[in-house]
């Protein structure tokens, strides 16, 4: 059973944005208003999420739940960042340097671990999946592009080889187009489902 009011509001909002896109630039004002509403609501939701996060970890600390030390670190970091931001301002170079000095190495290290995991997965895929079209094509393409990434072949400066390398490097565009077309069709279907109440919060 679907809520009629929610369904009607969702349907009308979607149709309004769609019409505004088609009648641009006249419909730009309507679109801007709707998008601003979305941004405000999203910002409020972000604040609520931050408050919920902090309260949850405060509850963990009070109850002494396992791993509450990490909760203490989170709460202290949040309080320190909030206090420095309020006191110094978000444009202060010290504040920006302080935050950047923490976040940058952490995220970089995580990305390096992702690279190692990907490499391990590439090694295991043949043992786990065996020999198949997918694994063989993956292995061959990975080897080719790794060799091209080394730059040895490019440094040979052989015209024919360079043409071949350019052709090979253009091959991913085929897959990317198919990927983008699939994404576009999926989004279109999802939009219709939301408009007609078959998807989203209209369901009970």
């Amino acid at each position, binding site marked *: 059973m679907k809520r009629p009011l929610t369904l009607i509001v969702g349907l009308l909002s979607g149709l309004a944005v769609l019409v505004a896109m088609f009648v641009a630039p006249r419909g730009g004002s309507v679109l801007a208003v709707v998008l601003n509403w979305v941004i405000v609501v999203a910002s409020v939701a972000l604040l609520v999420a931050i408050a919920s996060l902090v309260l949850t970890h405060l509850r963990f600390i009070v109850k002494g739940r396992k791993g509450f030390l990490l909760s203490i670190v989170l709460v202290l970091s949040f309080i320190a960042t909030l206090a420095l931001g309020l006191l110094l301002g978000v444009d202060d170079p010290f504040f920006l340097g302080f935050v950047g000095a923490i976040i*940058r190495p952490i995220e970089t290290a995580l990305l390096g671990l992702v690279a190692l995991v990907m490499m391990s997965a590439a090694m295991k895929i043949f043992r786990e999946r065996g*020999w198949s079209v997918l694994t063989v094509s993956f292995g061959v393409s990975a080897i080719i592009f790794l060799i091209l*990434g080394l730059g040895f072949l490019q440094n040979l400066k052989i015209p024919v080889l360079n043409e071949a390398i350019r052709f090979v490097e253009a091959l991913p565009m085929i897959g990317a187009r198919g990927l983008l077309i699939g994404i576009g069709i999926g989004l279109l279907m999802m939009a219709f489902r939301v408009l007609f109440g078959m998807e989203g919060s209209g369901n009970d």
Partner: protein
Amino acid sequence: MTEDHSELNLCPKCGMENLPMATRCVHCGAEMESLFTISGQAQRSDEESEESLSDIIEEIRNDPSLKTPAEVAPIPEIPPADQIDESVLNSQELPDWLAKVRERAQEEEDSIGDLASGTIAMDAARSEEASTGVEGEFNAWINRIREKSQQENSIRARQLPTDSEDPGQVPDWLQRIRALRPQSEEEITHEVKTNPDYVDEMPPEWTDETLEELRREALAEDLEQATEPLPPASTIDEEETFPSEHQTEEPGELVEEEPELIEEDFHNIPDEEEEIPEAIPEEDPAPLSEAEEETPADVVVEETLETEEIEAAEEEPDFQAEEVPEEAGQDLPQQDDVQSEEAEYKEAPVEPETSEMPKQIEPVTSLAEEESELPPEEQDEEPEEAEQPTDSAAVPPDLLLLRDQQDRASLLASLIEEEGRVTAGKQAIRKPSGRAGRLAVTLLLLIGLIVSILIGPAAMPADTPKSMPALALSDQIQTLAENDQVLVVLDYQAAASRELEALAAPLLAQLHSQGTQLEFLTTQPSGLFLAQSLLAQAGLPEDTRVDYLPGSYLGMISSAANSTISPVGDGVVKNLHSFQLVLLVSDSSDNVRGWLEQIAPWIEPLNFAAVTTQMEAPVLLPYFDSGQLVGYAAGIADGNLGSQVAFSYRAYRVGLLLMLVMLLLGMISKGEADAIRREEERVE
């Protein structure tokens, strides 16, 4: 012993023959008084028999031959039969009819009738029983006989028809066993001897000697029962089969600890060594002593016992004399009072397994017969060999067992062998975990990267060719004139900052050197502090303004759609139409797509270029191919990063080489595993 069945009485309950003087049926224990009926008269119930007395008297009274002419008219009143004697005794004068009866009774030999004679015989028998006190013991003995009979009937029903075989001849199945397992006959060294005393068939009649013998036997059993309670029926069966167990229980009390054997547990597998002493019973002196005395029990034995067993017992006196004292005597060295009686019947072979295997009595007995044929040396060695642990898991395949029974026996034997042992759980075959290989590869990777980094940055060749989008982007930048406005959108996270900043910084420096007006906008909160590093690497002034646009590119769409209500407000990025180029520095192809698909239509003919990671570059290639992107830079070669100090081109190449090696190792290891598997399959 005579077998005159004409003198026997039939039991009214079971129909079996009994002695004339028996008050109870020896087969079923039913009362035999009803048998003493008047000859020539049909058997009736008790009430009818009481009535028959008055009828008889009435007939006598009405018999014209007994009447005198004077008594014909006046017929005196006749009291009931039970009152006759009293009236006669009380009165001094006898009536005429009674006098005639007495007179006739004196004249005729059988005038007292069968009724009186039967009653007299019954009274005599009762008085005899009462005087001897045998009745109680006799009843108990009868009960045991009955149960024994039932058990042996059931055993016979399960036995294969090998009874008719010649006991002195080696059976076929035993020959096959010997052919298959020569040592198996050594393992089964004990003989089986069943008790020949109590069998189904009873002597045709009981004489005084027989009863006296039974009495003595019962008295002996009473002595045993006085020390322990009467065992249940199943135990009685075993005791009857092996009477010697009574006497082994009393001194040693070994049988009490022996678990009660269930018929399903019986098997023909030699048991563990520790079970042998408990299962060895001693011989009961009564049966064989009676057998030698040629008592009526001996007759019963000769008629009912399997001929093979008796002959085996008689043929192996020496063996039994050696075996029984040696084994049983270890646990039961005393019993001086009993040994005097045992001296005669120790010859009877008793096999411990027999108590556990009533089904296999005959085959094992046959084994005993075969063992009796062995030379004396082997017989002397048999007890020692029997005490050695045998291979219970090996079940002779030719024994007379069903397949299911044989399987169960094998399972039970294996369980018995493993009993008490410390057994570890079934360990699965450990497959190589590959931890060593993984560790080696990881170490190789780390060592390669560390060494390449420590050696120092290696400059990337300056003439490294760039990609087509990078060349297009370079051409687009070169077309910009002084004071042209360029919007630089910083939309990336800290993780990709190293790669993107290395690509974007040379471009920004080039733009700055051309005199263009750079405006910086970020849609990520992290873009504020990330811009500092980028500006520093590009050599831009530190006071360069970076605007933050909330709501990501949604806010930019709103601003592009209607700049008057744009959330950007008083920022420098108030009108997108004034920019000549929008340079998107993003680590997400989705954000670039959002700019190209959602914002670009509102601010045509604005040019868009991108700086992204090499991972996201293929997705942007179609937009470059369609002209929505004038160019983009992705990867190390596009940014010509070799000129930067912080970039180690050698480490980059080492990392790529290691990835290539690991990928090849994965393929090779898979191929090797497949080859090994195929080889194993071929071998199998």
